[in-house]
């Protein structure tokens, strides 16, 4: 019997290694797998590369992971959220590497990794500072830059419902980066608010098929704290 549920967040992240590239779902604090991130903090890892739309707020979750010196590099689109003081400070002091990527390019690079596309052309960022150093080619008269797939060793995902095959649904704007990150990593770990029986999810309503999921932890924490 396939059963992807594990007992705890700590068990779920037990084999994440130093130097790993970790994709972290969520937009702001919605759909963000904070309990998995906290478990990652407990591991005391080094030199992580984190891919996340935002760069943490306050002192918990991703902000804690960075504050404790676990993160060598952040790849994100918008590090300047309300309360993103930890990143700002580390960045000012030159103690963290920051790669800012346009949000759509970031999503598409992960989608490419998940879909077996090693690289693609896009007009986004062509001719701008964020396009500097990239290969340029015109398509239909429009300058495009070459962007490469962005794959994770691990993805940390938050879901609303999950069954033992790892089929997932999301809640409202909690969907955001979670489905694309779930398909873009070698090891996909999910924290879910609700655990449901196999067959309980309407097959038309599954957003992430279990095929993309490796482990699930049931963490019914309630509502996200927006800041």
């Amino acid at each position: 019997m396939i059963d992807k549920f594990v007992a705890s967040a700590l068990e779920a992240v037990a084999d994440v290694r130093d130097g790993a590239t970790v994709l972290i779902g969520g937009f702001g604090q919605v759909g963000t797998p904070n309990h998995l991130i906290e478990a990652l903090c407990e591991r005391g890892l080094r030199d992580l590369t984190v891919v996340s739309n935002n760069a943490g707020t306050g002192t918990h979750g991703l902000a804690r992971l960075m504050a404790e010196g676990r993160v060598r590099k952040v790849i994100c689109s918008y590090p300047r959220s309300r309360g993103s003081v930890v990143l700002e400070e580390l960045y000012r002091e030159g103690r963290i590497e920051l790669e800012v990527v346009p949000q759509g390019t970031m999503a598409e690079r992960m989608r490419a990794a998940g879909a077996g596309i090693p690289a693609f052309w896009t007009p986004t960022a062509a001719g701008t500072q964020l396009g500097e150093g990239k290969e340029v080619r015109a398509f239909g008269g429009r300058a495009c830059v070459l962007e490469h797939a962005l794959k994770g060793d691990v993805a940390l995902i938050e879901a609303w419902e999950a069954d033992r095959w790892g089929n997932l649904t999301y809640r409202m704007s909690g969907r955001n980066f979670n489905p694309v990150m779930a398909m873009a990593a070698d090891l996909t770990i999910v924290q879910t608010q609700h655990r449901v029986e196999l067959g309980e999810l309407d097959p038309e309503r599954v957003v992430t098929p279990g095929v993309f999921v490796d482990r699930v932890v049931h963490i019914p924490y309630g509502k996200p704290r927006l800041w």
Partner: protein
Amino acid sequence: MDMLVEAAPLDRHGMARRLAADIPEGWVVNLGIGIPTLVSDHVPPEREVIFQAENGVIGVGPAPPPEEEDPWLINAGKQMVTLRPGGSFVSQSDSFALIRGGHLDLCVLGAFEVAENGDIANWAISSNEKAPAVGGAMDLAAGAKRLWAIMEHTTKDGRPRLVKRCSYPLTALGVVSRVYTNLAVLDVTPEGFAVRDMIPGMTLEALQARTEAKLRPAA
């Protein structure tokens, strides 16, 4: 400069209202953070405009009353919103497929500068100050069918924002088709900025005095 004693510049809501008047029913529209977000408040609910937020919400409705707030439902500015009947949720990759694939009729962005060739600079002031943050601005600017900028006509200390060439880091090249300021509405044409209309009391000469790029009346 004294002409402005008669010409009262629009405030943020006035600018948003002026822009909202030009959005027809049925358009799919993304609103950037800041003044652009105010635009939806000025579209009457009976005129169906589909507002899209890049975090994956299609059919964004007005802010909820406090007792109906739901932290699961936020917009790209991380504010709690509502969903209109007919709305739906998509993933980030599908949301940006929509944005980048030319399915937005309109994107409204704030800007530091817009150049007469349609270049826009709205994401970074200098390279080394704070951690840079681009969000979806470059994708929106490159992908929408139409890009309208909305901003103060000049900086607080009077420097023009409608320029010959942008001095700030670019967001995208040659994409702005119209600019709404607190003083006027201008089209970006192959011949540069063309003034569509101005606030009462404003003259082309007075507007030109506050603008680096050459202005001409709309055809």
